[in-house]
């Protein structure tokens, strides 16, 4: 299995959710460093401000909550930060814990698997770092105020690995895929920069210019 041993080979873990959603969106954000806030992303930031406090730990009963935990995985070649990790004290043990990862999301569960993929990538990082196994984690949605349990099964793990490898391929070649206009664009904060309309076949500039020249020739 390929390992990403060099620190500079690492890509941002949070990008995997963008990549799973749309490869072009990921490239615009992570390859081209373009980023546009919209209402959703600003709300997301505010939600995260509460979760993002590396000095915060909280103990409630047998559960210790730690926030903003730095993560890295050499098999995925990703690094990032987990919002929240909960350490559950194991019965009859003073030192051993079981871990669960919780990722905070604004809004509600998505029709696709981008949030599950991001959570699972975090889990794989934590597994590598602590040499443990995680069976599941949680996604918490701001709109529904509910936790959803996510099983880290082989299928999801395979998908994460596949996405991460493709991200590295595209990054290495500096590829920004062409736009694909579809219903995803409606909720995309990057639509203004992406200009998905250019995906349409009839938007060829050559044709536009030919129309202009014809007009000039008719004068």
């Amino acid at each position, binding site marked *: 299995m390929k390992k990403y041993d060099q620190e500079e080979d690492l890509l941002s873990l949070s990008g995997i959710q963008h990549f799973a959603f749309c490869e072009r969106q990921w490239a615009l954000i992570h*390859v*081209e*460093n*373009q980023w*546009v806030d919209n209402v959703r992303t600003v709300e997301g930031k505010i939600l995260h401000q509460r979760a993002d406090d590396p000095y915060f730990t909280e103990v409630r009963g047998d559960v210790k909550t730690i926030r903003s935990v730095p993560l890295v995985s050499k098999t995925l070649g990703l690094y990032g930060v987990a919002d929240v990790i909960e350490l559950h004290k194991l019965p009859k043990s003073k030192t051993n814990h079981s871990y669960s990862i919780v990722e905070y999301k604004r809004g509600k569960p998505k029709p696709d698997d981008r949030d599950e993929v991001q959570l699972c990538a975090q889990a794989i990082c934590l597994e590598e770092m602590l040499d443990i196994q995680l069976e599941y984690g949680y996604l918490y949605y701001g709109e529904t105020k509910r936790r959803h349990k996510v099983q880290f099964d082989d299928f999801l793990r395979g998908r994460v690995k596949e996405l991460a490898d493709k991200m590295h391929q595209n990054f290495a070649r*500096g590829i*920004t895929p*062409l*736009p694909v206009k579809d219903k995803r664009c409606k909720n995309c904060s990057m639509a*203004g*920069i992406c*200009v998905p*309309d*250019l995906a349409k076949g009839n*938007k*060829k*500039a*050559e044709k*536009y*210019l030919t129309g*202009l*020249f014809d007009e*000039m*020739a008719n*004068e």
Partner: protein
Amino acid sequence: MRKMLNVLYVTNPEAYLVKDGENLVVRIQDQEAFRTPIHYLEGIVTFGYMGASPALLGMCVEKGVTVSFLTASGKHQATVHGSPKGNVLLRRKQYRLADSDHDSAQIASMFIIGKLANCRTVLRRFISDYGEKVDAAQVVNVSKILARNVLRVNKEIHLDEVRGIEGESAREYFSVLNHLIVAQKEYFYIQGRNRRPPLDNFNALLSFLYSLLLHEARAALETVGLDPYVGFLHRDRPGRVGLALDLMEEFRPYMADRLALSLINRRQVTGDGFIKKESGGVVMKDTARKAVIEAWQKRKREEITHPFLNKKIPAGLLPYAQALLLARHLRGDLDRYPPFVWK
């Protein structure tokens, strides 16, 4: 398309800009004269005397608000903006293309095609509005020359030829602009284009409008991650924003020339708004500058259908839309750069 935010123009020589929380505050003689939340703004242009506090500049950099300092006459002095946006790979592509005369000519010719076509529209609009009242034969003639010159740019062309056609067309165009001035003819009369310094009222007015436009072109390029200094038509010269000047070409007729004409023809600026200095150079008075900026802001809010994207956008977003299309072309998403052509 992105949302058009406001550009704040500060013309009062006593104005000093400070930060208060998330707000920009304009103070005049230590009194608060104006206040706005910073997130309503995308740019600040000061015709600078007093300047701005470091705290305000820091907030502007953080929020992506570009602050430009111009002299009273509109000459650019300095711009404060945050880290460059966008991809270094895109900028490298821009530099590679700019290094090639052949590629540069291909892109430069698109800016000029846009410029000539839009100059022609300025003339044609005049002909349809006034053609019956005045002798427009010369104007019609130049309009035809411009159409022919657009076609001359349409082939494998060298940069020098592009520049030649552009220069020749500009001379023809400016030779008939006097016909398009139908009011205050005694105060506004031009003999060609001059700018260092402007030698008549009309040229002074144009120079000022072009400096407003240049600021917008530059900000638009920076927003999409292009380097405003490295142009295709305008070659590198220290301190010159070559690509911003390139991008500006296609907008001059639509955003500046016709605005200058309507300001004169509607008597929104008058002869007493200008002073002729002993050297022969003409400078604009504060009152005239204020009137121009007001009209400029109003025009930016007018909606126009973008000819290539086929979408209604405020005219103020045109430089951004074109900068975006240019970036798309340089990156290879788009076969050619489609210039903005006003119909």
